[in-house]
């Protein structure tokens, strides 16, 4: 019998076979906190579409919005998160989150290009409302730090996803697709807005 096995492969197989799962003492609730934090902005469709819209709009606006946005948004959102942690009530948070999807989606669809400070102000107001919703969950999290790391990371990745989609603006056809996406986001936002004000009750 003749077997040709590369030496490196043999070494790798033996190394893997000789090991058992590492049983380092795990900090209680880290995995659960991370997963719940990561999923919170993703499983809420109203949050998800608004965050993606922020990224797309940033890409449409170009510099400096495209690079200031990912740096400052989490911080402004954290201010809202602090208000949530401290149980400071904000007026109609669910309605405002739906409004954020309508306005941001509409801005993308209409290719709105306000002066940067105005765009930053609009995004900052909505960031506070989104942060408030996430922050209110923080004290209830099994591991608050893991939850915080999770939701900040998820939000950042959603922006990155939006910015990546926004790069389609380089091509005329891509611009049309993005405008269509913006209109879709605004439409979904309208649904959540109607739900928020009790139109379906």
């Amino acid at each position, binding site marked *: 019998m*003749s077997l040709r*096995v*590369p030496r490196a492969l043999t070494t790798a197989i033996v190394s893997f076979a000789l*090991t058992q799962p590492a049983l380092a003492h*795990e900090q209680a609730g880290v995995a659960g906190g991370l997963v719940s934090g990561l999923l919170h902005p993703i499983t809420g469709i109203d949050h998800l579409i608004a965050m993606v819209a922020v990224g797309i709009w940033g890409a449409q606006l170009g*510099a400096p919005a495209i690079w200031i946005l990912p740096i400052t948004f*989490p911080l402004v959102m*954290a201010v809202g998160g602090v208000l949530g942690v401290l149980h400071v009530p904000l007026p109609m948070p669910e309605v405002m989150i739906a409004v954020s999807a309508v306005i941001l989606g509409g801005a993308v669809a209409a290719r709105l290009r306000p002066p940067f400070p105005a765009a930053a102000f609009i995004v900052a107001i909505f960031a506070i409302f989104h942060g408030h919703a996430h922050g209110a969950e*923080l004290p209830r999290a099994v591991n608050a730090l893991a939850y915080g790391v999770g939701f900040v990371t998820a939000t950042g990745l959603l922006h990155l996803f939006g910015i990546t989609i926004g790069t389609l603006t380089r091509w005329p056809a891509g611009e049309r697709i993005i405008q269509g996406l913006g209109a879709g986001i605004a439409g979904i936002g309208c649904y959540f807005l109607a739900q928020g004000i009790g139109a379906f009750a």
Partner: protein
Amino acid sequence: MKLKSPRALMATAMLLAGANAAEAHIVAARLGDFYMGAMHPLTDLQDVVLWTATGMLAGTLGAKGRWLILVFPLGLLVWLPFGSALGAASTQLAGAAMMLAIGMLLAAAAQVPTLLLCALAFAVAMIRGAANAADLRPETDRLLFAAGLACVGYGAITLTMALTAVFKRPNSDSATSWRAIALRALGGWVAAIGLMMASLVLAS
């Protein structure tokens, strides 16, 4: 590699079958407390976030960061003899405040003076050294634990600085290159986490 006989294959199979379970916590073994000191900070998310942020800040500053190779492990050792003299809430609040400060500096791409950088890193190391010392048991060999902690602190901070410096590339001076923005965005994330954690500690 050429195995000409089934005997060699059988020997390999027997070797694999006879393998014992690997244990990460080899506290009972010789030098176990050394490994405990080395592993302990890697299992705490606050250590991971703070050490990474500190290493990233130093890595973005280039040659200034070299001082941390010495300062950071020393800082980890300073508070170790005092154990849990600092309360858990105090270390959490101080850690969150440091996350906010370091994250803000990273997000702003601030050119931090060497002295301030060393002071920040020393403070972070002291706070986390105290937090790690709080979990020491009476039977733990403190010297071995300290050696393990200092070694992993040295390794982690050096590796993070090096990786950051390589990622950023020394030649790309622009603070708006995508590599610089990626690092600054991570700084913004760290600052956001620090702000919320500080408020949570203060609220509870």
